[in-house]
């Protein structure tokens, strides 16, 4: 998929651990792992809002579009 999730980069920048973020967001670590590994099919605005609020960033810092080369 050409959409890349840069959540681990943002977590490293904010020096925060995955389980801390999951706890603050109110989702399970398993679901956060699905999001981090790019296995998720979609992301809710409410989830994106929570991530942006906790990590103090913009949606563009977490989601990136990279054109696929054939």
């Amino acid at each position, binding site marked *: 998929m050409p959409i890349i999730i840069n959540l681990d980069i943002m977590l490293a920048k904010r020096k925060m651990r995955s389980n801390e973020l999951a706890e603050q967001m109110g989702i399970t670590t398993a679901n*956060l792992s*699905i999001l981090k590994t790019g*296995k*998720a*099919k*979609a*992301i*809710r605005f409410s*989830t994106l809002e929570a991530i942006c609020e906790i990590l103090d960033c913009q949606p563009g810092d977490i989601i990136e579009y990279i054109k696929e080369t054939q």
Partner: protein
Amino acid sequence: MKKIIILNWILKIFIAILILAIPVDQCLRYNMSNEALTLLYKGSVFGNYSPYIMLLRIAVVIIAVFNIQKGLQAFIKNGYFNLKSSVRLKRSGYLLLTISILGIVISLVGMRQSTERDLLSDIIMYLLLIAIGVGLLAFSDVIKKGNIIESENNLTI
């Protein structure tokens, strides 16, 4: 889910009755003389082979019903939208379609031997069977699509 459990048991009983009917039928035929058997199947398309053709048709019906029952069992075990049920129902749909189309062809081939009323009732029964088969195929597609939607929904964070 309760209705599906009840239907699952009804189908299990139905399969058991169908399986029991085969040896009972064989026993009844075993006691009949050759002349009586020839007289009995005189008007039939397949002649003396009619009971074997009937046996084959019953076997196909048993397999089709067995597949429906297994599909329902998968509903109970894995929830409504699972690929296992979809595959099972699709298989039984194709089997029912095959048996009903063959039944119509056999009825039409042997239409001279049977009365108009019998022929009509047979064809109506087979058309109903075709409707059930097509319904099962459509239902199987719905389950398959539902499974995709469910997995996408589960992967929406």
